[in-house]
């Protein structure tokens, strides 16, 4: 009996992966690799190489120890929790190397934001948003990314960060206010 992996839920795919089903692993990778890659890119200074390494590390963990996932729980918060932890590790490594994790690029961005054409350019907005996100510290950036890019619910984000939903709301408000304050040129979009 052939299995239609595209119809299986994330949790069902993980069940198959625990049973060492290679096709299930492939299906899960196809489903989540773009989202996770984007997440890593946003959180890791748009460093593609580093993001690929982290993505690889995450899926190696899944392939080697799939039983670490509790199939009675939701997969999406769990996988983003693992991804966030990997990012935190990268932040620690970077901190040890003496680099600053959250670079305050606000003045520089403000100087370069005079181009009027960028105001209506969504692509430019996206680019600028990424840059502004780099100025936010890790918990706020991660919370914002999960909420507005990965579209996780507040509850799921609270599971990812192991904090209350109230904390998630607070972080979202703080991130949104800070980003909006650094992107006044895009108000008319």
């Amino acid at each position, binding site marked *: 009996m052939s299995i239609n992996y595209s119809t299986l839920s994330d949790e069902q795919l993980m069940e198959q992966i625990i049973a060492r089903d*290679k096709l299930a*692993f492939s299906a899960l990778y196809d489903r989540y690799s773009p989202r996770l890659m984007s997440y890593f890119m946003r959180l890791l200074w748009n460093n593609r190489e580093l*993001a690929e390494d982290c993505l*690889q590390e995450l899926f190696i963990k899944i392939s080697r120890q799939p039983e670490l996932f509790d199939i009675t729980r939701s997969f999406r918060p769990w996988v983003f929790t693992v991804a966030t932890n990997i990012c935190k590790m990268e932040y620690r490594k970077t901190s040890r190397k003496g680099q600053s994790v959250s670079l305050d690029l606000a003045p520089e961005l403000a100087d370069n934001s005079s181009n009027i054409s960028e105001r209506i350019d*969504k692509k430019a907005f996206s680019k600028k948003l990424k840059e502004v996100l780099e100025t936010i510290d890790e918990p706020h950036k991660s919370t914002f990314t999960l909420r507005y*890019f990965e579209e996780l619910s507040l509850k799921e984000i609270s599971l990812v960060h192991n904090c209350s939903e109230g904390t998630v709301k607070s972080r979202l408000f703080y991130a949104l206010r800070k980003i*909006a304050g650094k*992107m006044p040129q895009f108000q008319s979009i």
Partner: protein
Amino acid sequence: MESFEKYSQEFEQLILNKEYSLLNKNELQQLDAEGLSEEEYYQIRETLLAIKEMDSEMEFPSEHVKNKLLDVFDEGAQKQARIIVFPMWAKLTLLAAACIALGLFLFNPNSTINNTTNEVASNSQSSANEDQLINNTSSESNTVSTDQTPIIDNTSKETNQVDEIQSSDESISINTNSDNQVGVSEIPMEEAPTAIVTSNTSVSNSQPATLTTSSIPTSAYKWTNSLESEKSEDVESNEVVQSVSLADFPNVISQTVTIY
């Protein structure tokens, strides 16, 4: 900001759906509590709308990443196939079997491990063994005595030699074999009755003394105050003791040879 936690999600809906001018009094109070001005309100609103409208840009990893991960997955599957995974009931059965085997080994009534004790007296078998050993020792002693017959003969010769010396000279010259010449080798006749004190011998005139000689190399001549020769504590069972009464030395009347 802490108070904002209570209505953050609602705030998102609020800010997306309502113009600032349309906010009611209660909503305005909430915004004031957060220190949010009208300008900031619109700033956030525009940014939020832009984010919502923004196309979700997906980053795709390189193809080789997937191939590598599938290889890793295959390796993991092969490793797991090599590992024999025992179910819980099998583990418990093995554990119980091991416990039973250990119990049988330790508490088996037929095992000789329980028969060994440190109380020799209470063990009849051990006592019997001891008796047997004693008997064997006695028989061995007899055997040794029998084997010492040539030594006895040699002692007799020595006695004869003493007789010859005493008869030919006025001094006592005990000329036994060279090994026995320890202590007194020559005793003048006139000094014999008097006390003779050497390093290993003592003689007093108050009682008739007896000169005891031993054929054992380590034994010295021993003067005793008794008429009968005695066996010294350090004399072994196979030694031959020659006793000569000192009172009778001048005349060499009696000589007693006691053989142990």
